[in-house]
């Protein structure tokens, strides 16, 4: 995949601004689930790890790819599941209140 540097930097900067904009007004109550949710999003590193596994062709490459994929998958699955568990509780408390 080719991506010219200027385009990549543009995407990076604009995404930073979006991140700032989206988070700024969150109530303190939701900080933990929000951080946990953002935490699962960086699990997208799994996509990169899969690409590494696809190009690996020696032992060192396989070992690195295995750990990268395993780490990424743990980040994704664990992150989303635990965030959902937390948010489920918030919904329960709202019903009563």
């Amino acid at each position: 995949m080719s991506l010219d540097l200027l385009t990549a930097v543009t995407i990076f900067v604009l995404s930073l601004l979006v991140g700032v904009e989206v988070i700024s007004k969150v109530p303190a109550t939701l900080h933990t689930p929000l951080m946990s949710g953002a935490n699962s999003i960086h699990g997208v590193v799994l996509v990169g790890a899969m690409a590494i596994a696809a190009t690996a062709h020696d032992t060192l490459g396989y070992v690195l790819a295995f750990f990268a994929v395993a780490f990424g998958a743990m980040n994704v699955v664990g992150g989303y599941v635990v965030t959902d568990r937390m948010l489920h509780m918030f919904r329960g408390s709202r019903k009563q209140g």
Partner: protein
Amino acid sequence: MDTAIQYVLLAAAACFVLGLRLMNHPATARRGNLLSAGAMGVAVVATGVVIARHATITVTGWAVLFAGLATGSVAGLYAARSVRMTAMPQLVSLFNAVGGGAAALLAVSDLIGAHAVPVRVGVPASIDIAIGAVTFTGSLLAAGKLQGLVSGAPIVFPGARLVNVVIAALTLGSGVWLAARPDNTVALVLLVVGALAFGVTMVLPIGGADMPVVISLLNAFTGTAVAMAGFVLGQTILIIAGALVGASGAILTKLMADAMNRSIANIIIGGFGTADDAASAEGGAQGTVRSGSADDVAIQLAYANKVIVVPGYGLAAAQAQHEMAGLAQLLTGHGVEVTYAVHPVAGRMPGHMNVLLAEANVPYPQLIEMEEANGEFARADVALVVGANDVTNPAARRSGNPISGMPILDVDHARSVVVIKRSLGHGYAGLDNELYTDPKTTMYFADAKQGLAALTAAVRTFVG
């Protein structure tokens, strides 16, 4: 076909943003998370399709891919399902570690055996490895501290700062070297080792009270490392998602640091309370402390009009949030107005206490934030402090001690104060709490869980 996949990945990235946006409100938060999770699933499948179509992957590669996916998913699922809500900060920290570690591995793997790597890859690869490796060891250590595997107190040894500076310089130097010569293996190894070591020496001197800020900061680090990995691999979705998390983590870090009235640099450079160890040691028990029984406290609570509960980490550690909610419900039923004053850094990560109280089904409108609560204390008959320490210490209003200037809950403005605590022990700041020797304070020495259960029983006999 490949272009179509690129559009699918772009849509997934857009869903991450929307998901995060939906998480701004309790009512839509769960949907936001599910949207984000769904987008992630689509991105993974789409990437799998690309890999299969290009057919450059070896059979061993497929085996490695699936073995990694299975191992990681099972580990993540198990951890997420079994974790107690009190241990949430450790888990988030652990996921930060693996995310950062994976991002660093991507760049390492990309550079190994590569020839004539252009600077536009070398620079982000170098940043990625540095930040990713620092996050990996730093987050693991932070999780260890929170779990109690490593002492939560700031660990400082003679010359620690010098060691820190040397390792930082080594990391920075080898990072620049690697950026300039991306195919140099010595530079690569030096950078990895230096950054891993720096992660340890960076977190080691930071005390438990500052952990919410550290976790938040490491979350931002991981996001940045992932974005850099996106530059290295030329994958837009990594750049977008990484920058998104990097920015949001940075904002949360800033909010946390503001809530403690400290700069981020101050937290990273100086351990909490490390400079004042001598001062706190000589403090001892000066002034008299009045202690009361469950019955004494129950009378106070039962005949109050307004009670403000100040929950702290001790409540969480004792898993007493359900007992707390039970007592509050009993009092509310008896016509007592009960609210919870939640300090922004109560618990061990931002907003942690809110999660714990939500777990115990505490009605949402009863939770009030610090500024609102401080206006209310003067009208409260009883302030019930359960397992909170430093955030209630009036000493913070004076200068010259480790918590000076830290925003606190003005518990001492209430007409009377009840503190449930196991002993007169110190909080993370290692300071005596002047609240405990205040004449209007009653100390009820008990474990939060048993103490609250005993109180509930005692109140029931009065209001029965």
